[in-house]
């Protein structure tokens, strides 16, 4: 699929499965900095499309193959970008599947436009929290990375040594962290507090790793969101999307079948895929 321009920014968009009017639209929201739509493209987007959905994946601004901008990296801008892209594609009401930072975007989108978000699968979602400290862990990790990137010139060294992929990934992270307002935008992003979570009207499937640093966010979702189901993946930490793909699909495909009207693949029940 070609790029889509929304809010003056060019976004790289991929669609899997035909856009038949009868198919539910499922939109995927990826995580920050080193992430992009490929983490869904190679894992759960294909099986979700096979189950009868029209899967829409896009790179957040400044990520993957979407246009870098100097600013606009907070959750509120990401929500506006999401609806801008959906408007450009002609999709009004959709289901969201979000990983990590994508989760706070999904929650804020559902609160801003409950008429447009029919349901959400939140995988290792950041965002639910009692106070503004919610983003500290994320910021600390990113800030430490930023300092290392700035002083080591690691990307240049890796590229010179022929480590093209790692060098390019680190150069992209360096550009985002050190040459945009991303860290400041994140620091200003408010958590989604319990009173707001109680107002989420759509059904939510939350999936967290047992040993995840953000597992408490999953328990908070379960306590506060009226239509929330929580699935904890034993033995996993934050990387359930990549390392727990089969179990994740076994949980989310039946959930999507129930709430979005997709099919339950035979392979999902047996876990053979």
């Amino acid at each position, binding site marked *: 699929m070609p790029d889509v321009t929304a809010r003056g920014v060019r976004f790289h968009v*991929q669609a899997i499965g035909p856009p038949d009017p009868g198919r539910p639209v499922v939109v995927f929201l990826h995580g920050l900095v080193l992430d992009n739509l*490929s983490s869904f493209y190679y894992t759960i987007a294909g*099986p979700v499309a096979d189950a009868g959905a029209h899967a829409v994946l896009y790179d957040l601004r400044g990520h993957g*193959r979407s246009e870098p901008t100097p600013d606009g990296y907070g959750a509120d801008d990401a929500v506006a970008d999401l609806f801008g892209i959906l408007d450009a594609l002609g999709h009004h009401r959709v289901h969201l599947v979000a990983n990590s930072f994508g989760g706070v975007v999904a929650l804020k989108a559902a609160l801003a436009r409950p008429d447009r978000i029919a349901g959400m699968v939140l995988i290792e979602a950041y965002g639910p929290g009692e106070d503004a400290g919610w983003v500290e862990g994320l910021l600390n990790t990113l800030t430490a990375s930023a300092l290392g990137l700035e002083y080591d010139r690691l990307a240049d060294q890796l590229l010179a040594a*022929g480590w093209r*992929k790692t060098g*390019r990934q680190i150069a992209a992270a360096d550009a985002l962290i050190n040459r945009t307002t991303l860290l400041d935008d994140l620091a200003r992003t408010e958590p989604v507090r319990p009173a707001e979570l109680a107002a989420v009207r759509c059904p939510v499937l939350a999936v967290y790793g047992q040993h995840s640093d953000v597992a408490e966010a999953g328990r908070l979702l379960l306590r506060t969101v009226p239509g929330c189901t929580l699935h904890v993946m034993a033995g996993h930490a934050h990387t359930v999307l990549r390392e727990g793909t089969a179990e994740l699909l076994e949980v989310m495909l039946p959930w999507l079948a129930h709430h979005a009207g997709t099919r339950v693949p035979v392979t999902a029940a047996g876990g053979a895929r």
Partner: protein
Amino acid sequence: MSDDALTQVVRMLAEVVGEDFLLDVEIGRDTTFNDDLGLESIEFVALADRLRDHYGDGVDLAAFIAGMDIDEIMDLTVGDLVDHIAATEAAHA
């Protein structure tokens, strides 16, 4: 047919990753996307777009890789892809 497919795949790779990088790499059937080319996952997605534009929906990289995990995908060689294109074209001939 497969020689032509190899030429096309090399051209598409040059578009995706940039000519200047590819000047240093001799691409053949045994070239791996990950170790030899250092192709990023997102660039593999961009390659899929170009394959679909050139060959039509028959060469569906998403379907081709659907049964593989990400490590298997990154172990793929240019020859694996060329064979897939040839098999798809033969099936549609």
